């Protein structure tokens, strides 16, 4: 079975990644190394947290979802109460080795059920405030000065810089590492690059000058480090599609040592209003891709994973009860996965409010017991070493950290 094979490979080649004792003490007094990186994966469209992380120990889960519940026999059990969707089985070895933590009932304090508002809030880091112009990842880069600024410090995979990375700190949007740069038909890429560089060196001022400098520096660094030439290691197999492509390239950047601190990728297809399916079906297909991509990424990076933390996020969860069309509607709390060498794994973090009617948000949705800023904030502080979150999440008084980072 494919999932098992991936797991074994990972076990065999990751002694450091798996040995947690070395990192168990002394933090956060020891500043995290400059090699640390955070990979954010946005599941756009609001993933059904209850299918990703199944509360199979709860009767009401099966009562409310006669057609779409994941059968107990199929769930990949984690702790007797929660289990992973069967298509996330490739992640089970990471749970067993203590590098995967799961956070149920996480989300925004804002009650909006609008995708666009909720995504906006999760990326700006200011729920309820629409006028924020930059994203929290960018504000982190603006404020954490001790980390070396390289053009690759914050990289988003996709044609545009996402909201989460927008702001005054340098951030790169890369569609494809292999085509990043200037190229032409009339003139060779190198020559064209030199020409534009000379042009901007001489005549640009202000931001145009510094951004151009960063671009050409990035092109040069890519040329020297040539991350695209880094082959996938340890037999990892990335699934076909944009997510797999993005994660493979993020791994290449990490291997090339270009100073990337925050990477971002996203995937759509989670807005399952109709015929969501259970252990089979359309949601299962998306989770297959997610599970394979995450497992391939961890396997590929091998012991380098000790400095990497992968965080999945989604704007909100979905209704506890299935709707009339075999799907789920927009809800509130969802689930997030945290994977990596610094993760205090093998635990269900945060407080689970349960699915009892009175415990639900507005009587219908999973309540939020972990503010997403407490989760993100803990990772920024304990994994990346952020000293001050007040500028990253302005106006927010941090609550209890879910304790996902050792």
């Amino acid at each position: 079975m494919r999932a098992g094979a991936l797991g074994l490979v990972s076990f065999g080649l990751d002694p450091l990644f798996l040995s947690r004792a070395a990192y168990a003490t002394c933090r956060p007094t020891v500043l995290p190394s400059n090699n640390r990186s955070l990979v954010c994966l946005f599941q756009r469209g609001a993933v059904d947290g209850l299918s990703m992380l199944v509360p199979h120990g709860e009767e009401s889960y099966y009562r409310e979802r006669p057609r779409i519940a994941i059968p107990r026999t199929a769930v990949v059990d984690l702790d007797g109460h929660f289990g992973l969707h069967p298509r996330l089985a490739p992640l089970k070895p990471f749970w067993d080795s203590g590098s995967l933590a799961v956070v149920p009932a996480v989300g925004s304090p804002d009650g909006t059920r609008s995708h666009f508002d909720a995504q906006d809030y999760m990326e700006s880091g200011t729920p309820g405030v629409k006028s924020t112009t930059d994203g929290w990842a960018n504000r982190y880069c603006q404020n954490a000065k001790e980390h070396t600024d390289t053009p690759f410090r914050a990289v988003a995979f996709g044609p545009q810089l996402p909201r989460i990375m927008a702001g005054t700190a340098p951030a790169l949007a890369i569609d494809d590492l292999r085509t990043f740069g200037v190229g032409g038909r009339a003139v060779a890429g190198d020559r064209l690059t030199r020409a534009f560089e000379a042009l901007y060196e001489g005549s640009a001022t202000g931001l145009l000058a510094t951004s151009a400098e960063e671009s050409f520096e990035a092109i040069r660094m890519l040329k020297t480090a040539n991350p695209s030439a880094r082959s996938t290691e340890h037999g990892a197999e990335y699934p076909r599609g944009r997510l797999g492509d993005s994660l493979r390239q993020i791994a290449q950047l990490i291997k090339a040592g270009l100073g990337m601190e925050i990477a971002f990728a996203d995937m759509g297809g989670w807005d399952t209003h109709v015929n969501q399916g259970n252990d089979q079906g359309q949601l299962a297909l998306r989770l297959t891709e997610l599970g394979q991509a995450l497992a391939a990424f961890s396997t590929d990076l091998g012991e380098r994973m000790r400095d990497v933390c992968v965080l999945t996020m989604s704007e909100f969860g979905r209704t506890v009860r299935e709707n009339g069309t075999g799907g789920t509607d927009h809800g509130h709390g969802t689930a997030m996965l945290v994977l990596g060498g610094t993760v205090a794994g093998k635990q269900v973090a945060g407080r689970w409010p349960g699915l009892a009617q009175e415990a639900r948000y507005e009587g219908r949705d999973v309540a939020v017991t972990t503010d997403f800023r407490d989760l993100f904030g803990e990772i920024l502080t304990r994994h990346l070493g952020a000293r001050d979150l007040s500028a990253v999440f302005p106006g927010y008084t941090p609550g209890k950290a879910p304790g996902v980072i050792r």
Partner: protein
Amino acid sequence: MTRPYILAAALLSAAPLAAQPALTTPRDSALHALNRLAYGATPGLADRIAREGVLRWVDRQLAVTQADDPGLKGELAKFDLLSTGPDQLLRTYLEAQRDRRTDRRAAAADSAMAAMSPQERERRMSPEARELRGLLSQAPQLVVVRAVSSEHQLAEVMADFWSNHFNIFMGKNIARVYLPSYIEETIRPRILGRFEDLLVATARSPAMMVYLDNAQSIMPGAEPPRVGRQGARRRAAAMPALPQRRPTGLNENYARELMELHTLGVDGGYTQKDVTEVARILTGWSVARPAQGSGFVFNGWAHDQGAKTVLGVGFPAGGGEDEGRRLLRMLADHPSTAHYISGKLCARLVSDTPPDGCVDLAVAAWKRSGGEIREVLRVILHSPDFWAPAHRAAKVKSPLEFMVSAVRVVGGVPDSTPRLAGAVGRLGQPIYQHVAPNGYPEHEEDWVNSGALLNRMNVAMMLAGNRLPGVSVDLDRILPVTSDHAALVAAVDRLVTGGTMSARTRRVIQEQLAGVTDPVQARAFALGLAIGGPEFQRQ
């Protein structure tokens, strides 16, 4: 105080003022005007404007009474969207929705679409869905085509300004179906008129009411009137188009943005209490059910009849739809509004951080004219700050401004496919796709980042080689094929930067051409460098 008059004289005169080197030539002024109240020069246009007199041309732009340039009629006829009425668009949408719902298989496919290739997605769509998508994809392209080709350039700049000020995100549910009429019927006829009219029109537009949720905002506890069984069934059949659950109370979304973004500004002096009161006043302002057309409806049953107070002004109990009108008038007339929007106009037209004096002049004109946009613009465009040398080339172009000005400067002709609008999106400014209601930003730090600059360079090279999809360029018409590189660079300078290119840039381009023996290649190279270079990023 004499300086503006001397300046004005210089701008009106057709001949360059060689005797006064401190003042720029009419041609320079024409270029500046073209960069700010237009989307840049087209071949020969700066000279024609300089001959006409720059201020005369500016006043002609201000005098436009209809947004669309009559000369564009043939071009616009290629866009079916413009001949598709809002009700017809809505019918197509409803049919596409019904297909989606009745055909389970199609429905499942639709939700899994993100995983499919675009071709696969296209194949699985129902004919109605495909038709709708085709029609709606014309909306962003229309922005580009009009901006490139219209003679009514200031009108297009203002259409962009107002559709951005009153931003609608096309991706939000049914808002995309309402967007075309929002642009064509709500915004474009009012771009140079009274601000209050524009404000009221947007407040009553289905697009805004859906986008900012006012359509669902009702007095808490209010119940719609009971309908007969048949009516209920009919309604149930119509409801799927609005996927929200039945509303249960107040939604403050529009009320807040109305004050924060559309009128007073975030520091305009309102409180959370005012937001709630405004939301109460606007309860019942809603949208007709999609099956019954695309218009505004006032639902008396949903309206909060109690007394309200906004910004210290009382709205007595028993007011209906009219108190909403009164509220909008009050907000439009508020001094904070005059100041906030004048500041935004100056930031667009003069400088990212406009001088107070310029904003004050605009505010005075706003108050004098009762918020006549045309008069406010007239004062800004005639102000010394607008023409001050310090503000020339002081702004970085947005992706839309860059793309449109690049196509214009080479005399390019865009086609009616959505490809050019798509390219603007890939440069970072997808049209009608700004999610948040604040619209695209106006400051250079929001547009200049390393990946984005490289993309601009690539677009420039493709355009210079006539290889940019969606536009055709007749290079032979605009530049000579010559092996004299100095002459080539001079011609490129004249075409792209109106002869204002720095000596250094000219030298660097010429150096880079060294060794390029093919004159056609050299031409594309020099032109691409000029358009992708730093000077053309500014305006």
